[in-house]
């Protein structure tokens, strides 16, 4: 187990490094830099810009240096000083900007994952065991509809309907009065009354996917001899299925966390924009368009880290669940 974990950790570090490199490359891709945007907005406001001042800023921000140098500065800053650099647009420390939003992201996406599993598990099992039954069809249809609706679209409609029907605004994560209050029952309730929408929207597509995978896996497992063995022991049908095939079918499912997370993060970017969630998503979107590179870079990097760690956790979980992998050591 330990050896396995260590292997995975090494792999993770490598991937993280790659992530950071790509993240930095991506934010470098678009032509021009933040200052072009900045100058643009200034002059769009009919404001005068002194080229000298801009050059000064350029030098301060260390633009124009070769890619590798910039990258080196950036990554060492992060590793040694936990300093993600400056957000040009906010004229503030990136670290001061992102943690709160990242926290929200993790909260919302985490809840979405949980909901996804809670829903997908029973349905998936049911539709596998009762293959081609009415319930199976309903479940599949329902799941697929969830998969088919573009989530930003769904979010928008939810928001509008809740306005028309309840005259309520489900945007954001809290209503103003609870915004900066400390946690309390009413605040939790307020949170729920806002957060249900994004969580629902986010978990929708993932759920469908999970149901499908679980169903497929389970169908394979149900044919395996050991199921008969279990029956031959005199176990009840329910216990047989839960203890053996489901248990085995879960393994590959656990590893799906790996892709579930990046997918969630991505779609949450869009949903967050529609529903105005104070998550990392909208900030990332904005920073990318305005080429606020260090902010964008930090967010991409951290989201990447988030997902990679997610994958690692799911791998370890998998190993813990599945001795073959654990002892196979690979």
């Amino acid at each position, binding site marked *: 187990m330990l050896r396995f974990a260590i292997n995975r950790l090494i792999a993770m570090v490598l991937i993280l490094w790659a992530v950071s490199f790509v993240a930095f490359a991506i934010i470098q891709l678009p*032509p*021009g830099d933040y200052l072009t945007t900045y100058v643009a907005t200034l002059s769009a406001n009919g404001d005068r810009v002194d080229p000298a001042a801009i050059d000064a800023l350029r030098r301060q921000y260390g633009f124009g240096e070769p890619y590798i140098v910039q990258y080196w500065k950036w990554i060492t800053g992060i590793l040694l000083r936990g300093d993600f650099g400056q957000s040009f647009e*906010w004229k503030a420390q990136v670290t001061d900007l992102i943690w709160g*939003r990242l926290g929200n992201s993790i909260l919302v996406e985490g809840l979405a994952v949980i909901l996804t599993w809670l829903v997908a598990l029973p349905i998936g099992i049911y539709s596998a065991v009762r293959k081609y039954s009415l319930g199976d069809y309903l479940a599949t249809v329902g799941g697929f509809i969830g998969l088919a609706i573009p989530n930003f679209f769904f979010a928008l409609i939810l928001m509008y309907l809740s*306005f028309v029907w309840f005259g309520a605004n489900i945007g954001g994560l809290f209503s103003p009065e609870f915004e900066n209050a400390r946690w309390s029952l009413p605040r939790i309730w307020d949170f729920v009354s806002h957060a249900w929408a994004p969580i629902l929207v986010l978990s929708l597509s993932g759920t469908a996917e999970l149901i499908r995978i679980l169903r497929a896996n389970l169908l394979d497992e149900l044919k395996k001899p050991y199921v008969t063995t279990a029956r031959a022991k005199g176990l009840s049908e329910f216990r047989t299925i839960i203890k053996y095939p489901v248990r085995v079918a879960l393994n590959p499912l656990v590893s799906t966390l790996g892709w579930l997370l990046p997918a969630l993060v991505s779609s949450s970017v869009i949903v967050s924009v529609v529903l105005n969630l104070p998550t990392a998503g909208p900030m990332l*979107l904005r920073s990318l368009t305005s080429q606020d590179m260090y902010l964008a870079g930090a967010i991409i990097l951290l989201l990447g880290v988030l997902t990679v760690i997610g994958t690692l956790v799911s791998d370890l979980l998998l190993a813990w669940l599945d001795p073959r992998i654990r002892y196979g050591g690979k």
Partner: protein
Amino acid sequence: MKFSVLGTAGALAGIAIGALMLANPVLAAQQAPSLDEMVSSGALPPVDERLPENPLVVDPVESVGTYGGIWHSALRGGLDNAWIARTVAYDGLVRYDREWKEIIPNLAESWEVSEDSRSYTFHLRKGLKWNNGKPFTADDIAFAVELFKEPSYGAGTFIKNPQNPVTIEVVDETTFTLNFENPNGTIMDELASVNGLTLVSLSKDYCSQFYPKYNENAAEEAKAAGFETWELWMTDRCGWATETIRWANPDLPFMNAWMIDQPLTGDATRVTFKRNPYYWKVDTEGNQLPYIDGLEMRVSDSVEEITLLALNGQIDFQDRHISTVANQPLFYDGQEEGDYRMGQEIQSSSNTMVIQFNMNHVDEKRRELFANKDFRIGISYAIDRQEIIDAVFTGQGEPYQVAPRPESPFYNETYAKQYTEYDPDKAAEAFEKAGLTKGGDGMYTFADGSPLTITIDTIASLRPEWPDMLELIQLQLEAAGIKMEINNIDRTLYYDKRPLGDYDAQVWGGDGGLDVVQEPRYYMAANAESVWAFRWQAWYNGSTPEIAEEPADWAKQQMDLYTQLRGEGDPDKRAELMTQILTIGQENFPVIGVSLPGDTYYIARNNLKNVPDTMFQAYLFPTPAPYDPFQWYFAQE
């Protein structure tokens, strides 16, 4: 009715009003009940001590109001500082009056201008105080100038204008003089505009601690605070004028009617402001302003959410982001439900969309073509403006070129209407004259027969109606035999292309319809926004010499005139110069307009009073700030 002459007309008026103020000394000022308890507890000095000797007396729009209430509105994302500028921040040395005709006193109660309009002397009110109670004096102004003189610090203010360097001399606590190297006729307008706030936005007492000149360990402290340089730390602590970061630091002293309560940090989901107990304005009955206790702005990345909030009556006043043509029916129907009203806003812009063909194109053939007036005339004739107005603007507006608006003293019908009628024949004629030849497929080609396709850049995210209009124009031009592509790109790319000069044409809004003098970008190659002649303006401004190009004679002539205008003190002469510039513009017809923007609208809760029914909508005149939100109030039910 003298638009161009704002500067000195304002100056005179300034003195007049200043005198008038002294004439009616303020007796026994009242304050908001919310402050009483603080005063009685001694946490706050009594109102008379907080107010300056002669506070600015504000005439309420309708009636003297009552204290209380919160003004709810929304920011689109955390970087929508423009809305804060339009609501809280607009309090410079001077300000525009509500008709946007004159410049009236504000922090400065009067000022004089030297004959050669090189030096401007301002007299601040006596006893002005920052919201932390510290006095606001000429030294604070001097500090700002000193700081922005630092080549490594700040950007975008007249203090840093290389063309016309400025120095400041402090006469006494309340008096100072700005001395410009060259005559400067437009500085008063700049100071009255939203861009004129830099001077009064920094408290020396607070900000000097981040400035090595006053604190030798400023640099180390910056490092300790996690900033590379002292400049970065200064920017972070003492954001100037309307910079976003300014609203993130509650300790930073303010001179505005409201001060930061919950700051605009990166993860803020709402920003709140509360009344500034030291605010230096009173109403005609001597009540200290503002009436409204505070502002609450929801930070929302979703326009849809903001729209819904407004429809839901959860927004007290807002026009920004939501008052689009498309939303108008929604808001109209929702008035009962949401208990709000819609007010009229007259746009300062002269056109719904300006098509700027690139006369400095790097490709010789295209440069020649686009620089050819007949070609542009042809395009203009080929556009069926009424059709576009009906389709995109539900019939609102009229065919219009890029020329001063009817409300402007510079209005000139011929300029506004030339080539606006839809006439395929004339178009064809013009194209022939421009040397284009019709190919076999009925499409025009260059004289040498090489195919011609013009690509027009636009930014859908900025103005959703532009792509629509362009799509119609695309079809109309196709009918007239001109192939056209729409290139919908990101804003940054949009700006990046300008210096490169390889774009055929870009579109933008019709700025400068009312603020003709301040914003002549479409009448002449005046600044970096004159995309139709980017390299000419580079030559004029000397900002980016590497791409500068010597302009055509007529353009040069305009530049000379404008340089004169900048230096001209006498309003009438300035008006005259501007008229000449416009006449040349009219002759050479540099850019093509589509239609005069119809009025837009604002949303205001029915119980919000003292809000004028009609406003001008502009940025330099940062609507609604010039309509004195600090004298708005909520009627008690």
